[in-house]
């Protein structure tokens, strides 16, 4: 049953002609409204995930539910199709179940608010925002159990329900939801923030309609959709060939000992339509690394990569969706069947961007970047603070890490930065004041960025010293399959984690682990991966390599990957460098477009030696169907 929209005024909006200037003004006003949504959210949210890391996504849609401004594309069409209820003035929808919105949100931690905006009895727009909650209950602190076998283990699941019904707040519902989480204060603040953002945007839409007229406003949104459609049609014709191109990349493991999991995408154009087909992607995992990829969201990612270069001021919207056909096999890692667990989807979500870069880059070199920091490494640390005077108070930390941005056509990848928009790190002095820990080290990892004419950014080496016993969990990837380099650039170094006990004993820790007990005085070395290199490393200026040795970004040993012979203090030996470069040029073959490292079989063979961890076991699909 599709949703029933209850309007007290059934007069349809009249399509009116819009002059180009009015259209651009409305586009501008919509952009401002969206900026305002973000600002409202960040100021009032409380969980570190949203307030420091901006892990939240706004949208404003037309009366049909198509995104006019936003970031991740609209899910509203799918929602309306599945929602068996009414939508009326004064209603506000609240949900967190990915399966109820075709994966528009991809794990239950993302809480979504949807506000249908009525004006004079007519539905004129939707505003919506979702954000990551730090804890929604379930079997582990932080609610993202890597070893969950179904979504039932991942905390509270909220189907689409009305948090407000015709202007009346559903307090009992909220009590029920907040009762499930370990952090009701954060959840309440963050939910308030999401709601305040949607209300701000709704007010702006009404103001715009008042200023320009309802018909003009709605017609303008249609014209903005059409403009995106026209622009994308031109671009696709120019940039995408009819010959299929494929690209594949991997998620290293599922945290249960199995992996790697392949994601494959093939792209071609048929007439004006581009097909993106994920055939060849591995089946779903029985653990939680599945990423329920919404087709529209993927279209939006694709569109943003395409349009950015040509008119960066454009407002991305849903207008071009019918030009792109996304095919994702049912039961695959990207379209798992209910009730597959989804909470650990961040790795596949990130990898999608590497896939996109690799696909588009093959035909359009201006897009080609190396592989890089396309994930969000997580650390969870929780327990009761056992330090004197701390009253055994409960604490829980969820922290997102950063790493090396890939080498780019523009230049080196920045060290220790974020690929995700709006994310910032949490100040270490903040961590030390509010959590029982000292951060002994927060530096980039030398040589971790792949060598290249443009060096990949270095990953981060962060050392936590725990001051209270507790439990940690780690979610990271790229520890087995390295991030690839391009145009002759080398792959970046892989991620690793090391637990150093007070007595000096060192224990290699896996990159996807739950429920690891730590003692006061233990140190955790959390090392993230570096970005891949771009271009021939033998072309890099030796003086720059020498300078980076002085800066501690590259070691003398690492400099040899650039064919540079230098002392530990960065003094370059020009003659030896010339000789080494000549020798390396002699030995190597043609430079590959993509350098993905030695290949899966070789990586497996040397895994234990290289990483201190057992190689992941090739998954065998029939056994890995969702268990419940």
């Amino acid at each position, binding site marked *: 049953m599709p949703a029933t929209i209850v309007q007290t005024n059934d007069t349809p909006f009249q399509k009116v002609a819009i002059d180009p200037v009015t259209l651009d003004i409305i586009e501008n006003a919509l952009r401002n409204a969206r900026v305002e949504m973000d600002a409202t959210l960040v100021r*009032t949210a409380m969980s570190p995930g949203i307030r420091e890391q901006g892990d939240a996504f706004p949208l404003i849609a037309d009366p049909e539910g198509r995104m006019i401004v936003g970031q991740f594309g609209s899910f509203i069409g799918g929602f309306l199709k599945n929602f068996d209820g009414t939508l009326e003035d004064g209603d506000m929808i609240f949900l967190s179940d990915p399966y109820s919105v075709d994966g528009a949100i991809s794990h239950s931690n993302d809480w979504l608010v949807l506000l249908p905006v009525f004006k004079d009895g007519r539905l004129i727009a939707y505003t919506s925002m979702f954000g990551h909650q730090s804890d929604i209950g379930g079997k582990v602190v932080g609610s993202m159990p890597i070893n969950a076998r179904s979504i039932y283990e991942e905390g509270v699941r909220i189907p689409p329900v009305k948090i407000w019904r015709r202007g009346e707040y559903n307090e009992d519902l909220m009590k029920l939801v907040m009762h499930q989480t370990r952090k009701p204060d954060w959840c309440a603040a963050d939910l308030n923030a999401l709601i305040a953002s949607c209300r701000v945007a709704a007010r702006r839409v009404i103001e715009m309609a008042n200023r320009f007229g309802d018909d003009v406003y709605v017609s303008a949104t249609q014209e903005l959709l059409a403009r995106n459609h026209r622009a994308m049609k*031109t671009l696709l014709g120019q940039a995408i060939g009819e010959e299929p191109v494929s690209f594949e990349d991997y998620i290293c493991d599922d945290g249960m000992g199995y992996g790697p999991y392949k994601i494959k995408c093939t792209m071609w154009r048929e007439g004006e339509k581009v097909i993106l087909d994920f055939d060849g992607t591995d089946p779903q995992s029985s653990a939680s690394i599945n990423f329920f990829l919404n087709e529209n969201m993927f279209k939006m990612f694709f569109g943003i990569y395409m349009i950015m270069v040509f008119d960066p001021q454009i407002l991305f919207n849903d207008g071009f969706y019918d030009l792109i056909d996304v095919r994702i096999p049912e039961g695959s890692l990207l379209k798992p069947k209910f009730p597959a667990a989804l909470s650990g989807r961040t790795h596949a979500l990130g990898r999608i961007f590497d896939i996109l870069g690799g696909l588009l880059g093959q035909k359009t070199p201006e897009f080609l970047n190396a592989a890089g920091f396309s994930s969000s490494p997580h650390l969870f640390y929780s327990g009761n603070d056992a330090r004197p005077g701390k009253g055994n108070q409960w604490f829980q930390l969820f922290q997102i890490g950063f790493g090396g941005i890939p080498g780019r056509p523009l230049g080196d990848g920045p060290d*220790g930065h974020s690929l995700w928009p709006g994310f910032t790190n949490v*100040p270490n002095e903040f961590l030390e004041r509010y959590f029982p820990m000292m951060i002994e080290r927060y530096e980039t990892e030398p040589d971790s960025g792949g060598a290249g004419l443009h060096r990949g950014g270095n990953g981060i080496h962060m*050392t936590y010293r725990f001051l209270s016993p507790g439990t940690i969990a780690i979610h990271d990837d790229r520890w087995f399959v390295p991030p690839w380099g391009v145009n002759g650039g080398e792959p970046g170094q892989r991620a690793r984690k090391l637990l150093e006990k007070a007595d000096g004993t060192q224990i290699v820790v896996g990159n996807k682990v739950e429920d690891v007990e730590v003692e006061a005085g233990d140190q955790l070395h959390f090392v993230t991966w570096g970005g891949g290199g771009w271009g021939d490393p033998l072309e890099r200026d030796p003086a720059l390599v020498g300078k980076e040795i002085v800066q501690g*970004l590259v070691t003398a040993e690492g400099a040899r990957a650039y064919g540079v012979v230098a002392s530990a203090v960065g003094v370059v030996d020009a003659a030896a460098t010339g000789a080494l470069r000549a020798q390396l040029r002699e030995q190597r073959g043609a430079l590959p477009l993509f350098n993905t490292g030695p290949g899966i079989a070789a990586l497996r063979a040397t895994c234990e030696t290289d990483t201190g961890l057992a190689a992941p076991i090739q998954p065998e699909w029939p056994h890995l169907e969702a268990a419940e």
Partner: protein
Amino acid sequence: MGYRLGVDVGGTFTDLLLFDADTGAFWRHKTPSTPHDSSEGILNGVTAICAKAGIGTGAIDYFLHGTTVATNAVLEGKGAKVGLVTTEGYRDIMQIARSFVPGGLAAWIIWPKPQPLAALEDTVTVKGRMNAEGQEVRPLDEADVRFQLGRLKDNGVEAVTVSLINAYANGAHEARIGELVAEVLPGVPVSLSHEVLPEMQEYERTLTTVANASVRPVVGKYVSNLRNRLASEGMTGKLSLLRSDGGLMSAQKAEEHPVNILMSGPAGGVTGAIWVGRNAGIKNILTLDVGGTSTDVALIENLEPRRQRTTEVGHLSVRASALDVKTVGAGGGSIAYVPELTRALRVGPQSAGAVPGPVAYGKGGTAPTVTDANVVLGYLPENLLGGTFKLDREGAKAAVQTVADALGIDLMAAARGIIDIVNENMFGALRMISVQQGYDPRDFALMGFGGAGPLHVNAVARLMGSWPAISPVSPGVLCALGDATTRMRTETARSWSRLARDTSPADLVAVLDEMATQVRGELLSDGVPEAEIETAFEVDVRYAGQAFEVPLTISAAVLESDGIAGVLARFDAEHKRLFTFNMDTPHEIVNLRAVALGRALDLPAAELEKGDGNPLAAKVRDHLLWMEGREQAAVIYDRAKLRAGDVIPGPAIVCEMDSTTLIESGCIATVDHVGNILITLA
């Protein structure tokens, strides 16, 4: 009270405003800036303006100066070579920064990687550690410190900055390193983070300290050069610089803490607007400072400008108080274009700048700009600056025609489209500082100044519903006016970071008193008499866990009578106004600040001669302009000849030396008793 001279050095012009503090009379002068040595242009101006006023330079008691010298040193990377000493394990603190990449999804692809303000090769780490409670975890290894300082010495650093983890809680290690720097690198200036900014957040504290150290030599050289040049011209008055927060500080203090003058430039206009507002009897003002490449907007409530705790310079966000000025890349030089792909009309952020400038200036510009659209529409009459400079209207038309053709509309519609879009961009910036902060713009007047502000102020006021639209006296030199009319100010800040319920009022008052003594001492040492110093406190409060603090101003007396509960009640009210809701979460007192202010000057504006309401005597000529989709008859007036009480119906244009005021059709302007033009809906 004598003469106060305000001087604002901009990229193109140096503006001067000489104010007779006894009569309110003033003189203004504009002279080309001399970027190789700004003091040259300043001296030219001083000589000229003193001649206009018929006084000697010795009659000037106060020389009050807004300058972008510190800003430019940061933006152009011309600061000193700074050596940074930080804690072991944190060498990359400036390299990693906050890991933030600006822009949306995929913006990392096109983001240029900025170089840290202290080079990584000039950054060393030392052993020794404090914890968050300020307790020593590991002692400072002095042998190691000496070794590392030796490396900095070998590198030839010109300044040393020491910023250690948790130094905000205990600065002992930093202080000791400071002593060792004096031994190892004698004569090299040293800045300690716990002195410059005793606040939590290692990156921001380090950046602020480094920025301070980096611009210090540049500002020092600038100030001493200026002081010498002025002295050689017989000027003996007191030299003060405008702070980013709109107050004045002595030149000596500015040399020590130049991080406080990074936004000196834009602050001048806002303080000028306050002076204008006070004299016009208007207390709530939104400012619209339209320059060549950008527009600055700010909010003034009850004659107090909103301040913020950060100063944004380029990509850097430095922790020093500044007026809350938002900048948008929309100005007279903003270029209009139509991307082939989307066929949308875009205006800015690219700008034709001063060179080549708008097509109409005839200096080689070919791209259509906002100024060109104003010329085409007739809003900027062809004769500017008293007739010495003629605008190239035909050239402007040809350039705007390219936009019209790309859009498939006629010339005038395209020109007006460019104006509408740029006005919309300004409107967006104004919304951010008003509506988004919980203010209703209809409770505010809108004041347009800078070269092009008075051209756009009427149209933007219409969008905002902010009336009257004000074209202040001397809109082109309002910054210099602000320099001349504001008062001394200093402040200090400290982290508190405790829950309100765990804070005893007595402890809080004791710390605030200590801070007050410090800031009063600073003003006293600058020669402000004890009796004239006013102190106030600010307390930043938030719900524990939030990222955003609300600054609340309190006095010691109020704190004593209302207690902490009184502060929290005010926080709740402010939070509700800003975000529409309150919470049960405990309150956290985050930062404390003490502010000391010099005496507020009562500087009245000179009264304008009263007229009979008819502006005919000021009429220059009849004129035609394009508005509301048709050509309309308008009148051009000479601002110098307008009288108080004159009423000007729109459409009309009022010209003066350096600015042009546009009154739109459907509006009506009145000249107030001191010469401001107040525009309202007819």
